[in-house]
C-alpha cells in the first residue's frame, strides 16, 4: 500500500486503533466472538493463577479458611505474611543469594558475551571461522550432566556459590544473536571510528553498543532471568540450605511441603502479632517475592522482544 492518499489516511484515522485494510471483508459476528473468546481464555489462563497467588499471599487466615485454599476474591488484605517472611533468616538470606547471583552473573555473562560477539562480528578477521566452529559445536553436542558435575566438583565448585554462575555463564545462542546484531552495524560507522583513531575497544563502547541497545537489553533479560531461576545447579552443588537461592527454598518448602525452619510453617495456622496467618499465605508470599523482579523489569524490555528474537531466528 505504497499509494496512500490523504483520504486513505483520514479514513484510517477515523477507524483507529483498528487498521484493517479497506479491501478486507468485514469480520463475521461468529468469527469475532470466537476469536474474542479464545483470546480472553488464553489471557485468563495466565492471569487468574497469578492473581490468586498474589491475593492469597495478602489474605488473612479467615479468607484462606473460607476459600479452603487459594483465594480468588479478596476478603480483607493483610501484609502479615510478608512481615513474617521478611523476618525469616532463611528466606531473607536466600533472597540475597538470588539477587547477588543474578546481578553478578548477569554482569559477567554480558561482558563475556558482548566481547565475544564483537570479536567475532568482523568479516574476514583472523581465525574467526575456527573460533565460531568451536562455539557452534557446543550447541550440537554436550558431554552431559555427569561429566560436567565431575569437572565443576574437581574445580572446587561443590558447596560454593560460583557453581551457580560460571558453568552457565556463556550461552552460545546469545553470542550468535548478538553477533548477528553487531555485524549489522553500518560498516561506515566502524570505518569512520577507525579513521578517527579509535581502538576496537573504543569502537565497541562508543559506536557499536549505543546502536545495539535493544539486543543488549533483551539478552541481559534472558541471562538475568536464567540466573534468577537457577534451581538445578543449586540442587546439584549446594547441599547446605544456608547457601540456597530462592528457587530452592520454594521447591523444598512449598512444593515438597517440608516445614520451614524459623517460621514453623506446618499444616496448622499460627499467630503473628495479633493476626493469624495461614501457612499457605506465607508460601504464596515467597512465590510472589520471586515474581516481583520479573514483573518489574519485564515491561521495559518486552517491546524489544520481536526485534531481538527475529534476528536470532534468522541466524539460527
Amino acid at each position, binding site marked *: *500500500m505504497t499509494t496512500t492518499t490523504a483520504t486513505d489516511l483520514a479514513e484510517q484515522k477515523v477507524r483507529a*486503533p*483498528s487498521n484493517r*485494510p479497506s479491501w478486507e*471483508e468485514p469480520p463475521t459476528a461468529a468469527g469475532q466472538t470466537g*476469536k474474542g473468546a479464545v*483470546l480472553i481464555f488464553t*489471557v485468563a*489462563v*495466565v492471569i487468574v*493463577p*497469578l492473581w*490468586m*497467588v498474589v491475593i*492469597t499471599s495478602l489474605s488473612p487466615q479467615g479468607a484462606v479458611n473460607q476459600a*479452603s*485454599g*487459594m483465594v480468588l476474591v479478596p476478603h480483607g488484605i493483610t501484609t502479615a505474611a510478608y512481615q513474617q517472611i521478611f523476618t525469616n533468616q532463611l528466606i531473607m538470606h536466600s533472597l540475597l543469594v538470588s539477587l547477588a547471583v543474578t546481578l553478578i552473573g548477569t554482569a559477567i555473562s554480558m561482558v*563475556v558475551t558482548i*566481547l*565475544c560477539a564483537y*570479536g567475532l562480528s*568482523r568479516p574476514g*578477521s583472523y*581465525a574467526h571461522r575456527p573460533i565460531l566452529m*568451536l*562455539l557452534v559445536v*557446543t550447541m550440537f*553436542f*554436550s*558431554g*552431559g*550432566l*555427569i*561429566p*560436567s558435575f565431575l*569437572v565443576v566438583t*574437581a*574445580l572446587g565448585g561443590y558447596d560454593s556459590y560460583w557453581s551457580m554462575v560460571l*558453568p552457565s*555463564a*556463556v550461552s552460545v545462542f546469545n553470542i550468535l544473536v548478538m553477533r548477528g546484531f553487531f555485524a549489522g552495524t553500518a560498516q561506515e560507522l566502524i570505518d569512520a571510528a577507525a579513521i578517527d583513531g579509535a*581502538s*576496537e575497544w573504543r569502537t565497541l563502547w562508543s559506536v557499536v553498543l549505543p546502536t545495539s541497545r535493544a539486543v543488549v537489553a533483551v539478552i541481559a533479560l534472558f541471562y538475568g*532471568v536464567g540466573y534468577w*531461576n537457577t*534451581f*538445578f545447579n543449586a540442587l*546439584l552443588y549446594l547441599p547446605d540450605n544456608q547457601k540456597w537461592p530462592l*528457587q530452592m527454598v520454594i521447591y523444598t518448602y512449598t512444593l515438597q511441603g517440608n516445614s520451614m525452619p524459623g517460621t514453623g510453617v506446618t499444616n496448622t495456622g499460627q499467630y503473628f502479632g495479633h493476626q493469624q496467618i495461614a501457612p499457605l499465605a506465607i508460601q504464596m508470599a515467597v*512465590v510472589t517475592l*520471586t515474581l516481583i523482579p*520479573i514483573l518489574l523489569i*519485564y515491561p521495559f524490555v*518486552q517491546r524489544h*522482544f*520481536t526485534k531481538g528474537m*527475529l534476528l536470532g*531466528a534468522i541466524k*539460527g
Partner: protein
Amino acid sequence: MRDGGRVQKRTLRRADRRRRFLRDRSLLLMVIPAVVLLLIFNYAPMFGTATAFQNYSIYAGFMHSPWSGLETFRSMFADPLFWQSLENTLVLSLVQLLLFFPIPIALALLLNSVMNNRVRTIVQSVVYLPHFFSWVLAVTIFQEMLGGAGALNQALRQHGYATWDIMTNPDAFKFLVTAQVVWKEAGWGIIVFLAALAAIDQNLYEASAVDGAGRWRRMWHITLPGIRSIVVLMLVLRLGNTLTVGFEQMLIQRGAVGRDASEVLDTYAYYYGVVNANFSLGAAASLFKGVLSLILILAANKIAHLVGEDGLYRK
C-alpha cells in the same frame, strides 16, 4: 624457478597472516574469556564422557580409575529402568510434538488476524510472561490450581462433586506435562511465527483479495506458504531435541507421580550418577543421549534440505 615462487608465496602468505593477526589482536583478546569458559565447562566435560568407559571412582579420579571397556553400557542396556526412561522420553516428546507444536502457530495466526493494536499488545505481553518463570514456580502454580488441595479440587469439593486427581496420576502425567509446557512456553513460541507473518508482503493479500480470494483461501495460499520455512526450522529444532524433555520439570514432579511415569534419560543420568554416585553409569546415559541427539539433529536437517528448506544450517 617454480619452487622459488612457491616459497615466496608461502612467506608472503605467512606475512599476511602475521599482519592480520597483529591487526585483529584486540578482537582475539575479546574472544578469550568466552572461549576459556567454554573450554572448561563444555569441552572438558566432552572428554569427561570417557568416564563412561571406566569404572569411575570419585577417590581415584579420572586419571586413576580403571578402564572397563563397554561394561557400563552392557549393564545399562540390561537395566529395565533405562528402557523405561527411554520410552518415557520418546512418548513425552511425541505427545508434545502433536499437542504442543501446533498451538503457537495457531495462536500466532489468530493474533495476526486481530486488527486492534492495543488488544494485540496486551495479549502478547501477557502470554509471553510465563516463559520467564522458573519450572519450580510453574509447577507450584499448577499444584495450587489443580493439585489435591488446589483451587479446582476445593471448588469441586464445595459443590459436592468428586475430586479430580491431576497432579499425582501417573497415567495422565504425559498430558499434565504437556499442559504445563503449553502454559509456560506456547505464548513465547508465537514470537518467531509473528515475526515471519509480519515479513509476508502485504500486497499479496490485497492482490488476491481483489481477485476474489476469501480469507481462508488467502490463509492457505499466502499465509501458510509464507511461514513454511520457519515452521520447518522449528520442527527441525524440536526433532533434534527429541531426547530433551524438561529435565527440571520431571525432577520436580518425580516425587508426586513416581519414577515409572516421570523418569526420562536426563533424570536417569542424574539419579544414577549423582544421587547413587554411580558416575560411570550416569556418564554412559548422558553419552548415549548426546550421540543420539546429534544423529537426530543431523537427520532432521537432512530432511529439511530434502523438502527444500534451509533448516538449521545451509547445505
